[in-house]
């Protein structure tokens, strides 16, 4: 990072319409000094990858409460890789059963936040993930 606000895309892929969690997180991240690109509901994997590319975000946050993460996340990762965004980390929020954590990590998810996560913890974790990615060279 170069001392500027962390840019994060908050997207809700798939068909469930429960965006309160995503909005709460977006607001909390704003209050932590992040620039949050909020894309709204029902995003396709291609839309998410395209937005992440155009906005040159530091990290992509996905909110999934439908249980479709095993289907959606690998496709989103592939779409991002196809846009040369292989180095952009994904974090996941929502209802993700613990037995799925490992398979999510295998497709490149860097952190998972379920119910009960504190916004302070989320902010700290994102800062760490972005810092680990390090200074980007163009």
């Amino acid at each position: 990072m170069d001392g500027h606000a962390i840019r994060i895309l908050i997207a809700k892929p798939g068909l469930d319409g429960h965006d309160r969690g995503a909005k709460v997180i977006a607001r909390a991240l704003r209050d932590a000094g992040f620039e949050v690109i909020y894309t709204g509901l029902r995003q396709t994997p291609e839309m998410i990858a395209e937005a992440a590319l155009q906005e040159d975000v530091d990290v992509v946050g996905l909110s999934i409460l439908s249980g479709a993460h095993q289907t959606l996340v690998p496709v989103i990762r592939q779409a991002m890789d196809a846009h040369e965004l292989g180095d952009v980390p994904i974090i996941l929020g929502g209802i993700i059963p613990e037995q799925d954590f490992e398979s999510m990590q295998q497709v490149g998810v860097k952190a998972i936040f379920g119910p009960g996560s504190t916004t302070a913890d989320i902010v700290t974790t994102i800062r760490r993930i972005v810092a680990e990615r390090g200074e980007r060279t163009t």
Partner: protein
Amino acid sequence: MATLAADLLNGSRRALARALTVVENERPDAQALLTALYPHTGRAWVIGVTGAPGTGKSSLVSAMAAAYRKQGKTVAIVAVDPTSPFTGGAILGDRIRMRDLSGDAGVFIRSMATRGSLGGLARTTRDAVRVLDAAGFDIILMETVGAGQSEVDIARAAQTTLVVEAPGLGDDVQAIKAGILEIADVLVVNKSDRPGADNTVRALRAMLELGHPTNGGRMISHHGLMMSDDITHPSPALPVGDVWLPPVLRTIATGDSRTQNDGIVELLTQIETHRAYLLDGHRLREREHDRIEHEIRDRLAHTLMKNLLNAVSSEYYESVISQVQARTLDPHSAIQALLSAR
């Protein structure tokens, strides 16, 4: 950095996105990048879109972009949203209204936060527009933050400025106040399927006529000092075509299947007419000259202030502020003290 510019000019969207970040973050290599790209700029037509929050700017921009795509033109969008003055964070939500444009390689959307700038744009928005211009987009749509009455920076950053209104936001006295309405090249009453649209159109037309009642209702000096060479009042009626009278248009950017996109094609036609008006004679050249001079002054002021503050120790700077606070020094003398400190 040379490769970033080259990749961008070769059409890499990844390079374009990175270049916008370099410029937006004012990284040390931004200047070299902009120097490399500058010869490739000046081809796009830059359209500014401003107006109060909730008038439907993002939806209008989205509908306009779709209409330009139907004409075969490529479109870049820069959408600016406010940075919180308290936390430095921002929620950039303009893409929500632009989802119809996804999946089109002829469109590129970038959200920017104002990062403390107050004129309706971010300080680096002009440079971001230059980067998009160099990337070869035909049309660049620049959307300001929800603007009130004095966010007029956009008029100096765009070639055609749209001011978007919606029914029910104010009476005719709002319409004759100074500021944002004065910068309009085209006035748009969006959401014109809502009640009160006729009144809004009427109030705006009346405002334009008040601008120069002796001239058959045509407004001469709608850009104030920017177009001061046009002020010749009281004058006989000028030949038609010498004066740009901002048209007042009705649009429905988001309606039902019957009304959706009403007025958008007409809006594009009026923008083209305005473009032809500027390209006729010296108008565009004079406007560009004015714009560039203003930008140079802005940048000089910024750089001089940065250099001065770098030259003054922060202890001394703080002590001057404390003295002013303690009433032992007045603000004007404080400036003299700071200027002579280095």
